[in-house]
């Protein structure tokens, strides 16, 4: 961890606790009731900030939102995943079926 200041205007991700476990809706299942409801959003830092500190960001639609600074230039981590051999086997098998004209 570094305590170098993150400059004003940087695109960052912030974290906010919305409800503590005690404040959660009565109908939520047991496992969900044990954890807080949290919110993550992104925006441009309105002032210089520090990781882990409460900051204010300006969102893409222009609102100001406060929260704990958790990431700088947040990365999209989703991808196409590891190869799935069971999936790769499907194409050749059904093509062979079509070509062979197998019945049933």
């Amino acid at each position, binding site marked *: 961890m570094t305590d170098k200041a993150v400059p004003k205007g940087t695109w960052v991700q912030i974290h906010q606790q*919305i*409800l503590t476990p005690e*404040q*959660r*809706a009565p*109908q*939520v*299942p047991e*496992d*969900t009731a*044990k*954890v*807080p*409801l*949290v*919110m*993550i*959003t*992104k*925006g441009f830092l309105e002032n210089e900030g520090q990781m882990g500190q409460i900051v204010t960001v300006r*969102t*893409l*639609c*222009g*609102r100001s939102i406060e929260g704990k600074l958790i990431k700088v230039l947040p990365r*999209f*981590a*989703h*991808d*196409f*995943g*590891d*190869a*799935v051999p*069971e*999936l790769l*086997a*499907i*194409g050749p098998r*059904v*093509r062979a*079926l*079509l070509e062979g*004209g*197998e*019945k*049933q």
Partner: protein
Amino acid sequence: MKDNSYQAVMARSNEIMKKAIGMDYSQFARAQLAFDYQALMTEAGYSLEEVVAIQRETGVGNTPLYELKNITKLARMTAPKGKGARIFLKDEASNPSGSFKARRAALSVYHAAKHGYKGVVAATSGNYGAAVASQAAIRGLKSIIVQEAFDSRGVYQPEIEEKGRACEAYGSEVLQLSVGPELFYVFLRVLEDTGFFNASLYTPYAIAGVETLGWEIVQQLKNQYDVKPDMVVITNAGGGNLTGTARGLQKAGSDAVVVGASVDLKGLHMASDNDFNRKSFTTGHTGFGVPFTTWPDRADVPRNAARPLRYMDRYVTITQGEAFYVTELLAQLEGLERGPAGNVSLAAAVALARELDEDQVLVVQETEYTGAGKHVNAQLSFARKNGIEISVGNPADSVPGKSIILPEHPRQIQIVDLDMDDLRRSYLNHALGTLKGAKPLPEDISFLAEDCRVTPEFIESIAQGVK
């Protein structure tokens, strides 16, 4: 200062909603349960001609219709002699933002702009977020999308992460939440803070937006192939896709059998933090489909304009493995790489085609876009990382949340029919239960009869059992 506690905001819900939709639903109320559905759809909605014109303005609709010749051939190989309908596919991924949800968003955003709202808010982890964001971008409105996105470990469902990215790409503020129904509380607070329009999926505008989809199917089949649809299969979750499409089919004079299809996620709890990342579908599944079919008025508007029991002739389920398998078939045999959730109805279609004659016409009513996270390989890889067992065999042996089984042979694609009368009974129990012991009035009975297509006697028999 305003009390923004959970209880206080929920107590203001009706007031907040009225402002955020700009319509008083009480004008359509006719008795305790009864409301005038057709009046809601015609007076508050838009005519088909208006919808077409509004959607043309932002490039929505008029998506291609393809005949899936190789998948039809494969279905016929597993069908009795003379059986195996021609399977057609409406390629809704060609809409701006990549799904049929653009049709709904086009109307919501048009309506919001027309009534002077500066922005729109939608509570959705699905394709609707990107659709609203895209339509708002075209019409110069601001947009905020509230998503249920990750579990308490901070692990995102990859498909939702992709949809969040897409919303951001179109200029939305994206609020991502951990698992739980209190998302609605955050949504209400945003509506109250901003004064923006509630671009609900369930307003008459949103449903009218889907009617063009059913209408186009009939026109395209006639113009391109000179045939009529005998059966239309529709991926079902909140019920708007089915309701809107079926209304459009009817307006085009079609009497096609309307089949809803969902992925079976029995046993997984939708509000459970533990179950959240044990499912590989974020929509088109029974976790939404069954509760919304059996009680549509659980939505974020006073009366839901999506009322699937009015239009659904059958409701079938398939497994996650079968939906993934046909997603692969669609790419490998038809050259169309599309998202898995949109292919739920395609899986059902392979099984349904075997029931129909070779010259009959079966329409798979949509596709959705695919991309990182929102992809069959991404989902299976993610499921395996989460301890879900992936194998090849008989999908009927799979257990949602524990295993996914890809069929070994296309003959193993099999649908399970839900009992329509059970669904209707459940709907009536919900509806009559809201009366808290009061007797339904004659107008309530005729409304309920129409709302789930049963006789008044059927309702009387249920009413006697409800306390």
